[in-house]
């Protein structure tokens, strides 16, 4: 479903060029829950950004459902991010001016003109409320992000990522800023989504214990996949 082929990505810092991905190959299957682990600077987040078309590789290709997506024109790339991929970030990245409900509705806002939104607003609002109820934030619809706890903000971010019914969720250390219990809750939620809705999830994490709860664990070292193995849970 999602294939990265010989990806190379470098960042320039002043005169130095730092190669972050060094010929990385990866395949993620439909409906899979994959975790990517590795030390800081191993290129996990960069890989996630490339897979989600937030960034473009220096070399190599990325394919989604047999279609190359690393060189898409702007409009198609934006559509892909809006409808096919959902992002979850370590620092939640909710828009501070908007309520929880509006944050969750944002992908639908982006996808609609004023008139289009006016026509379908009830449907989208119902879905956003349903998602917020599902992640346990049904009572926090009108609250601003600053009025939510870290766990609540991340659950709101998960609800937002699910708003457009994406096929792939790309989660960049979604538990990195949460305590252990809350982090477990989030991973449990992601697991449910993967299992019940069939959403493919690629999760970057430092936490090997959490990674053990996914279908497959990929270890990255110096910009390459060093080891791929099914998790214990998957083996069970």
């Amino acid at each position, binding site marked *: 479903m999602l294939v990265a082929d010989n990806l190379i990505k470098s960042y320039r810092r002043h005169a130095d060029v730092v190669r972050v991905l060094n010929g990385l190959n990866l395949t993620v299957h439909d409906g899979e829950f994959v975790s990517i682990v590795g030390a800081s600077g191993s290129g996990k987040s960069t890989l996630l950004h490339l897979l989600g078309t937030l960034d473009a590789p220096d070399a190599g290709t990325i394919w989604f459902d047999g279609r190359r997506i690393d060189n898409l024109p702007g409009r198609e790339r934006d559509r892909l*991010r809006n409808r096919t991929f959902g992002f979850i970030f370590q620092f939640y*990245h909710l828009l501070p001016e908007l309520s929880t409900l509006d944050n969750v509705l944002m992908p639908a806002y982006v996808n609609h003109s004023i008139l289009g939104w006016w026509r379908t607003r009830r449907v989208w609002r119902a879905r956003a409320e349903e998602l917020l109820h599902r992640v346990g934030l049904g009572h926090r619809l009108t609250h601003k992000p600053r009025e939510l706890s870290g766990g609540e903000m991340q659950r709101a971010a998960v609800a937002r990522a699910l708003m457009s019914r994406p096929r792939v969720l790309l989660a960049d250390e979604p538990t990195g800023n949460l305590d252990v219990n809350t982090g477990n809750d989030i991973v449990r939620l992601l697991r449910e989504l993967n299992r019940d809705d069939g959403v493919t999830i690629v999760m970057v994490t430092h936490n090997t214990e959490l990674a053990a709860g996914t279908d497959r664990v990929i270890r990255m070292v110096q910009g390459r996949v060093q080891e791929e193995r099914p998790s214990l849970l998957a083996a069970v």
Partner: protein
Amino acid sequence: MYKLLLCVRYLRTRYLAFVCIVSVMLGVATLIVVNSVMSGFSTKLKERLHGILSDVIVETERSNGFDESPAEVMAKLKATEAGPSIAAMAPTVEVFALLQFNLKDRYGRPVPVTKHVRMIGIDAEQQAQVGRFAQYLHRQKGSLHPSFALTPEALDRFTRNRLAADPDAAFRIPLEGTPPGQPQPGSFLNEPNITIPASPPVVVPPPDLAAPQTPRLPGVILGYSIAHTRWKDPETGEATEYALLKPGDDVMLATVGSGGFKPVYSTFVVTDYFQSEMSEYDGSFVYVPLDELQRLRGMDGKCNSIQVKLTDDVRDNPMFVNNVIVPQLAKAFHPTEARVASWQQHQGPLLAAIDIERGILNLLLFMIVGVAGFSVLAIFTMIVSEKYRDIGILKSLGASNRGILAIFIGYGLLLGVIGCLLGTGLGLAITEYINEIEAGLTAITGQQVFDRSVYYFDRIPTNIDPMTVLLVNVGAAGIAVLFSVLPALRAARLHPVRALRFE
């Protein structure tokens, strides 16, 4: 949809935005107030210029006037293609003249005062029909039948003047019916070299001051500023007005005859004042009876100018008057014989100067809005910097570069529009209550902001032109948008990953 939502939310949550709004608001309000006041002054000025002149002026530079009589000249004009558009005409004679009258010094001795003036011979009734002449008269304001006749009070003053200067003069007051063309003895303190009639003066009983009789001396309507002087107390700043000449006082006017460079002069009695509130005219115009001036200059009943009033259907269309009516009327004369011009053409340089002045002032004032634009630029740059992460989030959710651009340009437009609306409200309110505001400022500071004695206006004139208000609004909103483009472009080009990582 997200663009509108975020524009509105950013507006509600970013207090910095209010600085932009206030900048635009003040710029717009200033432009509206200044434009309205300038337009008020300009309109008033044009009204007065037009009031003094009729719609079209036909004049000859020949010293002895047109070759034909006024009736024949008017008939020629009436016979042109533009004839049906003529509503009324009035012949006039306009010449430069010297005016002399006596003031008394501190010892009561007469001191002659001489002023150069523009002497205009008119038929008062006809003149009132072609312009706003009657509206500018002091005593006969708005009269349908203005005249040079003396009021009983003025006649009383005239008689008392005579008695004071020459006790016997009372017995020699020439009465209505005295044959015209004969200068009157004793009519002026510095008696000019006027031939005294050979026949003995008509001896009449002493006048009954309660029922005075009108003297035959021709009347004169003086410009208000000629007959008055202002003195401003340097300590209090209060201006006091003194009348130098009152109705009933006599003055002497000297000019040149029509037949060559031959001085002629005569004595006239002040009957009224002319106050157009245009200092140039009020300080130089002197109206005398047309027949009197014709006689004095030996013009044989001719005139050197015809004032033409046009019918209502054409007079308010200056383009038509200038391009059609004037050329049609001009066909009646040889180019060296007469000059035909509309009142706008006649006052062309002055009107052009007003327009140029207004244009330059507008340009300078628009720089205020330009400053507001720079505040929009500075504040928007700050807001975009604050919103780096939001931009990254939006791009991760599928927002396009164009969409991000639209958010910030829309934000600029929204600030501009709100600033314009508030500025328009403020500007219109200030314009509406400008006199009350001026009075308040004068009361607070003790300094008169608008000196009425300079302009002769009782109130600061204002004229709100909807088109100007619209243009100011469009310009100000346009500048707000223009100055938001640069920060918006910066936001739109932001790399999503770099934006998300921005601390």
